[in-house]
């Protein structure tokens, strides 16, 4: 034991000259300064390089985001076969006209006035001019506390106010100077005439401006009054009965000043007036509402481009008999009841007499009816209509063949056919054999609305403009669109709307939504995480805490897991296709459990996709969980074991809680990855076109990225726009899921800390 030498000597002094020798190898004092400065310059260079890299990344990311946003909003020129609003309005018009005790439906306001004046229980709708003529026998109800007066009409507070317009076209005005002269004369004399008649002229300045603009277009002197004696030829005027008295009075004066031609004025209602005009049998239209896109389209067929001037305003008066003592003010709901559902007055307001309401109405064709329906039932959509009405709208607007085909696909009513005969129904759906081509559940309202949207309304975006151009070139685009698509409705459209989120996929981009895809994504990600998380964390715990790393087999497994993390995702898709879709088909199609159906019998289900994604994220979760577990200090394990804890107690109470932050980070990364996965899902069989929501793990499915991929590969521009909107949805979904996971992680971390 004494063979160890004991330290007895003191260490030798360091040689002094050696220190000098090394010091001489460094730069001199000046050289040091230069050398440090040089190193600092290099450091600065690197700093600039890193800053540039960061800036580049920021610029690229912002550009990406901006371009997506740019795509998702903007002006569109949208063409519809029949606007949804018109279908809705037509429905309510028929409701109003189909109400009980409609004693009169006429185009002549005077008849309506006379009818109400003679009936103590009468109520009706008429233009203000006629109402004013019959002031003593009638009284006007105020709506929402506002009575129709000059002031409330001018300020627009009386809700049932409409514009009074005159329509013509540039071609007519240049072909027939007498028509142009009459129109200009009308503008010049509207204020005077309408005031005399007790009607409401448009603002004097507006009238003058319109007159000046029109005169300039026609090549006349805006300041000079029209001399009717200088014109000859016929003038045909057709349209609204409301504007009729004004036009008649102006025509009387026009003739009085020496006009030689004939003026033919017919009071047929605005709708009929436009029909005549577009059929080229009228030169001017008296209109009590603006022209609709459908009417514009009809005119366009005859190469007529409508042109309008506004001469006045007209309140639609809700008139009752002057003997009516109870009704004075009504709100929108009561108005709706008064003209549709209620039979007796008492049904509208408790306390009103239980006498029948006698209704005196204008016809479907009148502008008065349009204004009434648009005001009282405005803002309602197809979804607000009853199911039966929707069925009738559908049937009335598609071909019989289409209707039968749709009904064969899925019926409207459980017990009968609408578009086909009773025999056909019996033959197809009540035979003893299993019903083929006859899904037993009738349609629901949502699908019927979607059907009408697609088949009847059929909106087609003719052209769309990006957000930036829409903002900066709005006027030009408007003009361009009016030129190119005269019948289309040009408006600002957000592609990312609530409807977009809640509608299923559709072959029409205007009607397509991402609901099916969002649900599919959530299902698939949920299954992926629910399977991948426990398996991955379990494997990580085994590999870190139990497996003996000295054994070659365990090292082999570890190496493989590390390599799998870098395998392209499509390989996992192939694996999923082989294993889950093909081999395990009885399980993944749900056949073993007696669920699922013929459409999922091939195993291309949410379950297969979820399991494939679980495989895909397994290496990521295992590796990150392993790192997190490794990072738990071994002193904690020793402390726990030293107290007599078992290995499992140590892992469960100390290792996992301390590693959970890192583990969750891995899960978040994994989730972010699979929510954007497309390739493996396409291989496993995500449907690119599917309109039914997934109902469970054995459903067919599609996911957001698959949907986006499919849309971007379509040739139509509009699909690209909704793909942009879907990308935003995907990003937001990702943020939401990540935020939730981070919240969970932080909550856990706090509890442990």
């Amino acid at each position: 034991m004494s063979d160890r030498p004991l330290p007895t000597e003191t260490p030798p002094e360091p040689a002094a000259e050696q220190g000098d020798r090394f010091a001489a190898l460094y730069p001199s004092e000046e050289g040091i300064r230069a050398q440090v400065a040089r190193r600092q310059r290099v450091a600065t260079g690197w700093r600039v390089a890193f800053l540039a890299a960061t800036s580049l990344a920021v610029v690229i990311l912002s550009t990406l985001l901006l371009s997506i946003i740019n795509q998702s909003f903007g002006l569109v020129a949208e063409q519809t076969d029949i606007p949804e609003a018109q279908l809705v309005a037509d429905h309510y018009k028929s409701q109003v006209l189909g109400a009980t005790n409609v004693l009169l439906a006429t185009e002549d306001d005077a008849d309506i006035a006379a009818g109400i004046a003679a009936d103590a229980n009468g109520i009706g709708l008429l233009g203000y001019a006629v109402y004013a003529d019959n002031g003593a026998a009638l009284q006007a109800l105020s709506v929402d506390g506002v009575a129709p007066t000059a002031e409330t009409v001018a300020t627009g507070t009386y809700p049932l106010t409409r514009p009074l317009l005159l329509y013509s076209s540039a071609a007519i005005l240049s072909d027939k100077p007498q028509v142009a002269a009459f129109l200009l004369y009308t503008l010049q004399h509207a204020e005077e005439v309408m005031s005399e008649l007790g009607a409401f002229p448009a603002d004097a300045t507006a009238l003058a401006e319109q007159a000046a603009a029109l005169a300039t277009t026609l090549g006349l002197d805006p300041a000079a009054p029209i001399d009717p004696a200088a014109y000859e030829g016929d003038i045909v005027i057709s349209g609204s009965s409301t504007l009729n008295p004004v036009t008649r009075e102006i025509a009387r004066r026009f003739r009085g000043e020496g006009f030689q031609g004939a003026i033919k004025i017919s009071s047929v209602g605005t709708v009929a007036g436009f029909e005549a005009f577009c059929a080229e049998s009228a030169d001017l239209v008296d209109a009590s509402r603006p022209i609709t896109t459908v009417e514009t389209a009809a005119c366009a067929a005859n190469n007529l481009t409508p042109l309008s001037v506004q001469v006045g305003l007209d309140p639609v008066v809700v008139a009752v008999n002057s003997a009516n003592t109870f009704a004075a003010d009504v709100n929108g709901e009561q108005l709706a009841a008064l003209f549709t559902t209620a039979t007796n007055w008492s049904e509208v307001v408790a306390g009103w007499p239980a006498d029948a309401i006698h209704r005196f109405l204008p016809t479907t064709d009148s502008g008065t009816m349009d204004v009434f329906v648009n005001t009282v039932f405005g803002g309602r959509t197809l979804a607000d209509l009853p199911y039966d009405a929707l069925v009738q709208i559908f049937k009335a607007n598609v071909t019989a063949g289409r209707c039968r085909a749709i009904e064969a696909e899925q019926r409207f009513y459980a017990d009968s056919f609408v578009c086909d005969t009773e025999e056909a129904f019996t033959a197809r759906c009540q035979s003893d054999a299993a019903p083929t081509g006859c899904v037993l559940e009738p349609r629901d309202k949502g699908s019927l609305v979607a059907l009408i949207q697609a088949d009847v309304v059929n909106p087609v975006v003719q052209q769309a403009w990006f957000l930036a151009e829409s903002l900066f070139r709005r006027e030009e685009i408007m003009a361009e669109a009016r030129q190119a698509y005269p019948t289309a409705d040009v408006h600002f459209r957000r592609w990312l709307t609530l409807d977009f989120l809640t509608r299923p996929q559709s072959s029409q981009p205007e009607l397509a939504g991402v609901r099916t895809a969002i649900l599919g994504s959530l299902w698939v990600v949920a299954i992926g995480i629910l399977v991948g998380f426990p398996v991955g964390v379990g494997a990580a715990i085994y590999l870190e805490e139990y497996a003996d790393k000295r054994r070659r087999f365990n090292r082999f497994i570890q190496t493989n897991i590390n390599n799998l993390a870098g395998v392209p995702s499509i390989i996992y898709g192939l694996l999923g296709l082989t294993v889950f879709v093909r081999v395990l088909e009885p399980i993944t199609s749900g056949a073993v459990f007696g669920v699922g159906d013929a459409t999922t019998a091939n195993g291309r289900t949410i379950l297969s996709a979820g399991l494939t994604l679980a495989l895909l994220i397994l290496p990521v979760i295992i590796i990150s969980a392993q790192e997190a577990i490794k990072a738990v200090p071994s002193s904690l394990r020793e402390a726990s074991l030293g107290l007599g804890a078992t290995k499992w107690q140590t892992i469960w109470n100390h290792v996992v809680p301390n590693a959970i932050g890192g583990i969750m980070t891995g899960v978040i990364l994994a989730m972010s990855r699979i929510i954007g996965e497309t390739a493996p899902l396409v291989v496993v069989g995500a449907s690119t076109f599917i309109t039914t929501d997934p109902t469970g793990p054995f459903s067919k499915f599609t996911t957001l990225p698959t949907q986006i991929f499919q849309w971007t590969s379509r040739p139509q521009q509009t699909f690209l726009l909704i793909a942009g909107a879907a990308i935003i949805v995907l990003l937001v979904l990702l943020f939401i899921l990540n935020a939730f996971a981070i919240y969970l992680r932080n909550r856990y971390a706090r509890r442990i800390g």
Partner: protein
Amino acid sequence: MTTLAHDPSGGPFAIEAQALNIYYGSFRAVKDINLRFSTHKITALIGPSGCGKSTVLRAFNRMNDLIPISRTEGTVLFHGKNIYDADVDPVQVRRRVGMVFQKPNPFPKTIYENVAWGARINGFKGNKADMDALVEESLRDAAVWDDVKDKLFQSGLSLSGGQQQRLCIARAIATRPELILMDEPASALDPISTLRIEELIQDLKKNYTILIVTHNMQQAARASDYTAFFNMDTDRAGYLVEYGQTDQVFTSPKSEMTEQYITGRFG
């Protein structure tokens, strides 16, 4: 050295190592240790770095099992049973042989939970009040109660190093072990904290048998009843050089090497 020569006290023994050899892979870290420890005494294990004293200490609660490449030969008798027998569960051993580590390692839980957790997993049957009492008494016994009584539900990591180490001692004694192994418990602490730990160890002797590894000669001299001196042999394996009453080892060591070590001539 293969006989039970080092048997300074006689009397009842808490634990006993016979022909203990510990290997790390093929390297023998500790060779032929024969030692037995008297109950309710403090025994200091001293020696230069790398002589295997910590390895020997950790052999008494099978902590070395945690190192996959380690292998233990020989016998450690505890209540007449070799704790390295195949039918012995190391958890059974650790349940009865507590340990305090070199670096304070409280759980990242509340102070209360640090003490209560060991009791809870070991089947403590008391109700909430009993548990509160156990926690308080353990913290009092570990001389840290006054420091923490107002913040029992704050994290154990919020304490200073010395307080943390006393919390770890409280945690160890809360499960009422028979033996407490201390692996340089004061080496990471300042002198004041060290002193308090030493006083605490003296108090604990009444109820527990304590084995303490230390690098600090004064600490061994001040705080222990017996001292075992280890050294590293030429094959780098640690072995027991001398074992005796602390007074005797420090004042008249039998081995020249012991004398050189305690007088600071090597190590």
